């Protein structure tokens, strides 16, 4: 009965009571159909529908669903349309890594690779550092933590995600950069001498600490809870029988985690990592506050730079020329496409490959 009720589509929703008995509903429904279509019967029929209110209700539900569905498409469409000028002017050169990097509002010449590079390198460094930490946390939370410690630790990890981005930025500028990033940057500077790899470590790190490295390190803290929480959920979704099977074969706790649980949840954890990557690329405020926002800096992680998000945050409100605005919106478009793909992939990995299978 319940399933049937659920399956009836809106136009047939006379009322629940009428659907309870097939015969009665058929009778009423056929009555409606049989009546001659004069204006008075139309009115009656409408009155009948609306008296029960379900038509209005379903209209509202459908509209809301429509809003949710349309929103993403609309956002994409707007970005596409509003960036038209920049797309036509610069074409693929705009995001081409080997194109000449220019960002000159005065000349209306724009090329986004430095910003894209900034996003990718900061996110990549953040991932490299955050993934082992996050997976370790996930393992601890789902496999090892004693009952009484689990809830508080879960809270703490989730609190890390709840702190507003600007607060991270503020703390980053005044505490984290001078205390951690500057000394670390100085320690890393000698690596700049290495031929080839040295490109990434060409110093010096600014006295303020504003640098891609600083942004990356703040990002570590910010994406840590995302990766850790999703990985923890993935691990917890793995059936208990898998753990028992390994332990009953004489595996240690660690072997159970390393040889059974992580392989079992690998696609889910990969999804979590990709999700974290998406977060890192899309993160705006904290990065804008600590990355220094300057063009140039080459490929060095010790120098200030831009990310896609930070260049938009930093310049959009002051953009005067139409081309400047369009170029920034095109960066937004790139950001949108990138995060959309990453999130879709992550969602597929987490939901379809792991949670559902479990």
């Amino acid at each position, binding site marked *: 009965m319940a399933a049937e009720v659920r399956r009836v589509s809106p136009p047939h929703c006379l009322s629940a009571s009428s659907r309870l008995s097939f015969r009665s509903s058929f009778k009423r429904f056929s009555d409606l159909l049989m009546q001659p279509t004069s204006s008075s019967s139309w009115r009656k029929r409408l009155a009948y529908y609306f008296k029960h209110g379900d038509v209005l*209700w379903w209209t509202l539900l459908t509209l809301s669903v429509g809003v*949710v569905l349309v929103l993403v498409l609309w956002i994409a469409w707007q970005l596409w349309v509003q960036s038209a000028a920049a797309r036509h002017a610069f074409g693929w050169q705009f995001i081409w890594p080997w194109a000449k990097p220019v960002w000159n509002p005065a000349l209306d010449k724009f090329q986004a690779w430095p910003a894209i590079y900034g996003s990718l390198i900061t996110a990549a460094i953040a991932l490299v550092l955050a993934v082992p930490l996050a997976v370790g946390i996930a393992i601890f939370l789902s496999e090892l933590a004693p009952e009484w410690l689990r809830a508080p630790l879960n809270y703490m990890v989730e609190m890390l995600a709840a702190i507003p981005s600007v607060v*991270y930025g503020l703390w980053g500028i005044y*505490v984290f950069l001078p205390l951690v990033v500057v000394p670390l940057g100085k320690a890393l500077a000698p690596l700049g001498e290495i031929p080839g790899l040295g490109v990434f470590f060409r110093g010096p790190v600014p006295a303020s600490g504003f640098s891609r490295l600083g942004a990356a390190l703040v990002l570590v803290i910010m994406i840590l809870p995302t990766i850790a929480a999703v990985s923890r959920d993935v691990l917890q979704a793995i059936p208990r029988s898998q753990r028992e099977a390994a332990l009953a074969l004489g595996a240690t706790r660690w072997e159970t985690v390393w040889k059974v649980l992580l392989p079992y949840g690998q696609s889910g954890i990969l999804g979590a990592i990709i999700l974290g990557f998406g977060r890192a690329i899309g993160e705006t405020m904290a990065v804008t506050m600590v990355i220094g926002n300057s063009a140039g800096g080459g490929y060095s992680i010790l120098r200030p730079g831009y990310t896609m998000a930070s260049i938009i945050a930093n310049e959009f409100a002051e953009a005067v020329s139409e081309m400047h605005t369009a170029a920034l919106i095109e960066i937004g478009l790139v950001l949108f496409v990138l*995060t959309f793909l990453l999130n879709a992939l992550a969602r597929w990995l987490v939901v379809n490959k792991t949670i559902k299978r479990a």
Partner: protein
Amino acid sequence: MAPESIYAHVNLRRNYRRRKILNTVMLSLTGVTVALAVLPLVWITVYVLLKGGRYLNLALFIHLPAPMGTPGGGVLHAIEGSLVMVLLASLLAIPVALLAAFYLLARPNTAVAQAVRFSTDMLAGIPSIVVGLFGYAVIVVTQKHYSAFAGGVVLAIIMLPVVLRSAEEMLKLVPPEMREGALALGAPEWRAALRVVLPAAMEGIVTGVMLGIARAVGETAPLLFTALGNDHYEIGQIVRQGLHYHQSMGQILGQIFGQPADALPLTLWKYAQQPYQERVQLAWAVAFVLMLFALGLNIAARAWLAYRRRKLYG
């Protein structure tokens, strides 16, 4: 087993020792990672609370900011702006999210439902700065000026997926028999949903809304070029002026939503980067307020949720 036993090839004692050491080391390392995660949390929280707490005073909440370079002043404009925009965002996002959640409850496995869930997750994943660009393109460009309204709309887009996801989960927790029972008694669908299912899921939904609000209050990026910022935003002033010029209610509301407005995180962002000590101090105080608000709301919501779940599932 007649053939050669595998234990002819195994040195059990050595094997056990190696594995046990590995076990202990690796398990301890996971403990270390947790410590490494808790460390920044404690560091940030304690630092912000201590440092911000020092600059906390009543003036913060009741005065507009003092001119640059002069001490004193407050962030009343930002508090009111945040309030107005979050209120607007809630009014827009919560009904849509709840109705969509009811749709998902009524038709859980249809293609439309799958699309809605996918869309919700994608919406949640769009960087908030991109949502800001959208708000700019759709509202600011059309109206030709920045406004609290535009800020409210983009915050609504940020809130929508948060509220929708938790609302769906909460509605699913209500035993389907309740809804079916109501339908079987002859109640129309909407009545069953609003009178039976919604009250049963109310507490859970409220926590979802709280999480959404916490998220919206802390958002800065989408407001940068929608609400823009406004050091002189004061509702009391707008209302007084409106009354003075015998404006209608609608006109006054239009004033409130039509102006550029400020928000706490926006103020924090601007002040943090200004070279005046007083402004930076205000920024720390704002960070204190924001942090307390966001964390408090989060802790409350999650604690409540955990409590509810335990009560439901025993």
